């Protein structure tokens, strides 16, 4: 009984694999449509005309309106600067650290690994007040640089794991050959390992960028002046002032979600987070 039940659909598929494939495509399309409902709603609402205008039906006029009448271009610029800065620093710090996690052995590396894990478990709320006091004394409160530093701090643990997971896939024999040829550890890391790690680097960069771009809490606490607002804070403020005027609010939302979606669409083939499991539980 069980055998026939298992083989029956297989024979049907074997007879007409094309049709079975299209059936799957159809099913997947419906599931995807349902899961993406709330995101489709954003786009649909963005086409709504503003309240108290004569326009009826879908319109792109709201986009012109928000660019002309809100600070959204400034928020966009601030968000981009903070996120790109945080991403670059995060990768530059995490890559060598991940290399140590991947290749190093012994008590010090285990302790280091545990340190990263424990630090990562603390919520941002714990860091925020001491950092606020510390930053206040060096003028980093209400500054984009200060916010970028905190983004680096909050992405660094996972970034180290991601880099380490990628380095694990590069055979150590490559560096050993270079060392024999007189290359230093640092030289071997930069010239052999890092040069072959573009997917790992991009993966980590995408993660750090998304984290910085999507953050709400840190920006909420640290950014005070209008001209330093990043998109999440600007958008949230605009939303609170225009609760029911969904057209312009969602037009801003489209502007905010576009960059991460475009970046991910372009670079997704490099993105892989599955590997961090190995670097986490390995030791």
């Amino acid at each position, binding site marked *: 009984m069980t*055998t026939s*039940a*298992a083989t029956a659909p297989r024979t049907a598929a074997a007879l007409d694999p094309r049709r079975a*494939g*299209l059936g799957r*495509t159809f*099913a*997947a*399309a419906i*599931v*995807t449509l349902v899961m*993406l*409902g*709330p*995101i489709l*709603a954003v786009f649909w*609402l963005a086409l709504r005309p503003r309240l108290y205008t004569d326009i009826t039906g879908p319109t792109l006029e709201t986009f012109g309106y928000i660019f002309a009448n809100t600070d959204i271009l400034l928020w966009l610029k601030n968000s981009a600067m903070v996120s790109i800065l945080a991403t670059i620093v995060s990768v530059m*710090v*995490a890559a*060598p*650290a991940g*290399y*140590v996690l991947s*290749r*190093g052995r012994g008590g010090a590396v285990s302790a*280091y690994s545990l*340190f990263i894990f424990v*630090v*990562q*478990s*603390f*919520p*941002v*709320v714990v860091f*925020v*007040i*001491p950092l606020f*006091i510390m930053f*206040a004394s060096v003028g980093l409160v209400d500054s984009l640089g200060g916010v970028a530093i905190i983004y*680096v*701090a909050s992405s*660094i643990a996972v970034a180290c794991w991601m880099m380490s997971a990628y380095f694990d896939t590069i055979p150590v024999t490559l560096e050993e050959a270079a060392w024999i040829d007189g290359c230093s550890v*640092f030289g071997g*890391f930069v010239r052999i390992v890092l040069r072959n790690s573009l997917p790992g680097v991009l993966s980590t960069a995408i993660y750090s960028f998304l984290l910085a771009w999507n953050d*709400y*809490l840190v920006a909420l606490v640290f950014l005070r002046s209008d001209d330093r607002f990043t*998109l999440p804070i600007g*958008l*949230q403020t605009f939303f609170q002032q225009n609760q029911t005027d969904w057209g312009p609010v*969602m037009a801003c*939302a489209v502007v*905010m*979600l576009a960059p*991460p979606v475009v970046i*991910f669409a372009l670079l997704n083939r490099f993105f*892989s*987070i599955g590997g961090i*499991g190995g670097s*986490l*539980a390995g030791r």
Partner: protein
Amino acid sequence: MTLAGLALPAVVLMAVVNAYPVVYAGIQALHDGDLLNLGNFVGLANFRDALTDPLFWRSARFTVVFSLCGVFGSWLLGFALALMLKPNFPGKSVFKILLLLPWIVPIVVSSMSWNWLTATPDSLLPVLARDFGFGRVMFLADPTMAMITVCLFKIWISYPFMMMMMSGALEGIEPNLYEAARVDGANSRQQLRYIVLPMTARSTYIAWILMAMFSVNDFATIYLLTGGGPVDSTTSLIVLAYRSVFQDFRPGYGVAISFLMTGALVTLSIILFRQIRKANIA
């Protein structure tokens, strides 16, 4: 020696921006000061206050419910979608990217969209609920419904992470294993039970631990959708900690709450990690 040099930037950075604040916060938890002054030493009073506050325990209970939903709800959904995307079919890679969107879209944006879907009686979901004969469902105004809505929102945001983790794990299974099982007469349910689940167990446990950490520490998801209300029903420990610090200006108390929460979390993850290593799963 050079390895230590390579680790140095990260160590220095984490010592200054991660470790130092935690130590300072630990000192704050023992004082009764405000945002900028440390105040008087009060010993463990903040911890005692937290542990005797009914709101702390209500928030702890919601944190557990929220995290269990976040971990297992998103795992079930993400795993199911990963299984759906395993065989080859036309357009597979497009769906694989599209289904990650809830994780990529900023929470500020998706919370606004969920707000539009649920907040007022004229929103889409309440209207649909009425049309299907469920009567007047208040998605965000009724305490129980608000808890359910926030948990569903969390599952929706988190399933792509699980889908990525589980897709990776599924790719690691040798196709020969399925073949062998089929020859032995195993049906697809048996293959799931005896091949897929054991072979992905390690990734599953690690994904659970990570997601538990992400969920317990998740402030924005709850705060942006409900602000912790109505009547504190969706206040989790992290929201309570945030409010204690930035609305009641009692950082010591807020930090004490976070420390109790993180302590429980780290203990739990270490026990789970031990379990994984002991089980020695492939």
